[in-house]
């Protein structure tokens, strides 16, 4: 499980994330973010989550980078970095507490990859055992996504529909919507 590629991919993900954040020019920051999404997609494919990797590569890296680039085309590329010492200290302090809370809570979490952990036994064993005979779909993730928890997917499509209406309401010119 702890093969070499996991450590490599994790470091690549963190390095590109730091790059995307601390570079001054927004244009290269966004493109580093696209690289970050691709390495993340590779990492998830390695962890066995192929559907999520596919979606992250297409929706996460493709669509978000497209939206970022369109926004940057219409606004400015440069970011004037100014030090604001007080806010940084306050943020570092509160994030230190949040980080300690995360570490404090992580001790009892199941070890990565142990098949005896409760999430892998309780509900998901039913999905794995029964999904082929109940829904005729080999891909269990599609079966769970569309059938067992199909209502979540309906909510998810509504989320992207709400975003579509929202962008129409915020940006469209006054004349074209008065049809």
């Amino acid at each position, binding site marked *: 499980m702890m093969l070499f590629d996991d450590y490599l991919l994790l470091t690549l993900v963190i390095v590109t994330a730091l790059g995307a954040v601390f570079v001054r020019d927004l244009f290269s920051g966004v493109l580093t973010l696209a690289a970050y999404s691709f390495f993340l997609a590779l990492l998830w494919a390695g962890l*066995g989550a192929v559907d999520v990797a596919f979606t992250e590569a297409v929706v996460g890296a493709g669509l978000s980078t497209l939206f970022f680039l369109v926004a940057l085309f219409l*606004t400015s590329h440069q970011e004037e970095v100014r030090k604001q010492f007080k806010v940084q200290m306050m943020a570092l302090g509160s994030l230190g507490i949040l980080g300690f809370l995360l570490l404090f809570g992580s001790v009892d979490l199941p*070890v990565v990859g142990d098949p005896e952990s409760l999430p892998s036994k309780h509900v998901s064993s039913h999905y794995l055992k029964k999904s082929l005979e109940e829904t005729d779909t080999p891909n269990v993730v599609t079966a769970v996504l569309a059938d067992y928890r199909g209502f979540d997917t309906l909510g998810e499509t509504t989320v992207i529909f709400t975003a579509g209406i929202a962008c129409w309401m*915020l940006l469209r010119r006054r004349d074209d919507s008065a049809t």
Partner: protein
Amino acid sequence: MADIVLYRPHFVAFIILFLLGIYIMVVSLNLVKKLIGMYLMQTSIILFFITLAVKKDSTIPIILSSATAVTPEAYANPLPHVLMLTAIVVGVSTLGVSLAMVIALYRQYNTLEEDQILGKMK
């Protein structure tokens, strides 16, 4: 504390990305840089969920033939994958709406820096 780093490297990566994302969202004055931080925070939570779904030496959750009885230990846990498909799309939708706001703000105040916007609003 040492075993966390050794046995759960993914979890350490999640903590780093999550805190980095929130730090940038709070501290940076540039609106687009805040959204880059938001994107990092949302994808780090997806990393946390996917590490819950991993099983030692298991394949992807696609069951081709129902002839042999299916042993759940041989396949990764499909439920977090489904949840994270939703989280990715939610992240992209929130990003779309926030970029629409950034463009509308730029159209009005001609800057992406929050302090200049506050200055012009007064």
